[in-house]
């Protein structure tokens, strides 16, 4: 009786599920649990190695899986270096301003791409796409010359503007998607009611697109915080950023893994907090 019940409850699914179906209910549970464990291991693994390395004393940093000496001295040591806090502050300011500026600059562009047709729209979309394909290295190399000539090399401005520029094409494209998913009927109604085009954009379309823009804001902040190539080429001692600072714990005698890991953990924390608290908005915003 119980057997027939079990069979009938798994029956249709067993036919349906291919090799998973052959495993039966218990087997499928085990398979599912194993998959979850594997996922956790794969995604936590590198972070765990990082954390473990960062709390090992210099003597225990090699063979990190042996011995039980742990210490927070590495953090104290890197925090005592002014460049670390300075870079974190720079990265924070830069990511925040670059995010606001990038969104501000591209929201109109995305709206235009979504709501209008004709030669201007088509040409702008073409321009956006073509420049999106240009590899960063092709314009970061000469940007070094541009920022040097403008006298903004190794300053906030000299990093901020390229960071906004790198987002222009991609964000315009994504913003177009946000506006595409909103029906333009409300804006038409507002225009008929005597609202200006600008008013229809600002007061009707923009609020509806807010969830998407919020998601993009979080991603933008993370991308700027994590950016490396721009910082590597466009900064020196005056305006260091955290990713470059972290990568520089390499001396003639080799890499100081314990200090590098501690810096990496510090660099990871703000981004981690933002991801944990922001993931809900990201998933919701991208669904539009």
């Amino acid at each position: 009786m119980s057997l027939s019940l079990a069979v009938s409850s798994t029956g249709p699914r067993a036919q349906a599920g291919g090799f998973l179906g052959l495993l039966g209910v218990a087997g499928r549970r085990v398979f599912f649990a194993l998959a979850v464990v594997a996922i956790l291991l794969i995604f936590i693994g590198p972070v765990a190695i990082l954390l473990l390395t960062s709390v090992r004393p210099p003597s225990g940093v090699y063979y990190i899986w042996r011995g039980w000496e742990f210490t927070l001295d590495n953090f104290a040591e890197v925090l005592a270096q002014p460049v670390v806090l300075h870079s974190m502050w720079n990265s924070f300011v830069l990511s925040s301003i670059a995010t606001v500026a990038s969104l501000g600059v591209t929201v109109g562009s995305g709206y235009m791409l979504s709501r209008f047709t004709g030669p201007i729209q088509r040409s702008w979309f073409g321009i956006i796409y073509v420049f999106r394909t240009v590899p960063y290295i092709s314009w970061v190399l000469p940007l070094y010359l541009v920022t040097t000539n403008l006298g903004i090399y190794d300053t906030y401005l000299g990093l901020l503007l390229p960071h906004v520029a790198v987002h222009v094409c991609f964000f315009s494209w994504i913003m177009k998607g946000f506006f595409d998913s909103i029906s333009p009927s409300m804006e038409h109604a507002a225009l008929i009611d005597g609202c200006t085009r600008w008013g229809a954009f600002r007061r009707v379309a923009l609020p509806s697109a807010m969830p998407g823009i919020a998601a993009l804001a979080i991603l933008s902040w993370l991308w700027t915080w994590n950016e490396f190539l721009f910082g590597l080429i466009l900064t020196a001692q005056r305006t260091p950023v955290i990713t470059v600072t972290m990568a520089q714990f390499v001396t003639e005698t080799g890499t100081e893994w314990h200090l590098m890991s501690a810096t990496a953990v510090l660099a990871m924390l703000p981004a981690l907090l933002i991801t944990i608290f922001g993931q809900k908005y990201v998933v919701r915003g991208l669904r539009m």
Partner: protein
Amino acid sequence: MSMAPVSAAHRPRLLGEKERFMLLLIAPAALVLLSFEVVPILIGMNASFRDWSLVNPQKTWVGLRHYVEVFTDPVFLKIVLPNTFILMVSSVTLSLVFGLALAHLLKRQFFGRILIQTVVLLPLTIAPVITATMMRWSFNDQFGILTNLLAVIGVPQVGWLSERWPSFIIIILTDVWIWTPWFTIILLAALQGLPKEPYEAAQIDAASKWGIFTHVTLPLLRPVIAVCVLIRAIDAFRTFDQVWVLTGGGPARSTEVFSVYAYVEAFVNLDLGRGAAAAGAGAIIMLAVGLGLYAIVNRAMEVSR
């Protein structure tokens, strides 16, 4: 009657009220794009035709010499280009497959789902440089935890980061680790927004799960997948951080990809002209690839409509 065309000519249609509004909307973006992307690209093109080594103040015009050098450089042709495309194709394919699988898993409600989702999003949080640094540490010849773990489970010990293919596979897997969450999060959002009706119909037809996936889910997701792949493929072509940190292009330039090649020419060999030519060559190749991909993706979108 004859007045109408004249007055129309006085007020050209191109700058009607609507067109002015369109231009106003794109003005800020266009301005930033022009001054910090277009202008540098032009300067870069100029530099690529000159002997712009940092020690030579003359900046002699050398025409296409740098381009000829780049396109006849065996390192560029036989190593850098294949590497770049192998990385692009394998990284995009693998992250798409894993991302799709994870999105499917996270679509369901189960105990601990939020925890798994947070963990899966970890790579999005961590700078690629940090990830690559940790992978370099984990595969350290002597002290790397993964080197030792692999030795324990019986994988023949090789110099993971001192031989071409092992280190290139590590680069690919690191890239997949970094970018899988990007596919996961977008595909998860797309999955959650799919209409319910096709699934109910499929259930009535007693379709198998795999059948539902291939015949209902995949076609519905096709536009999203197409755009995701397009965006990622373009980005994968210019991968720099991971390769630079993991191997620096070594051993003996065997894992260099195109961005690293251009960087090395410009800032290590200190020949900005040659570096700009390499970057320009890559940009031309990428433009061709990008336009090709765009045509393919456009077709994929039309088919699914």
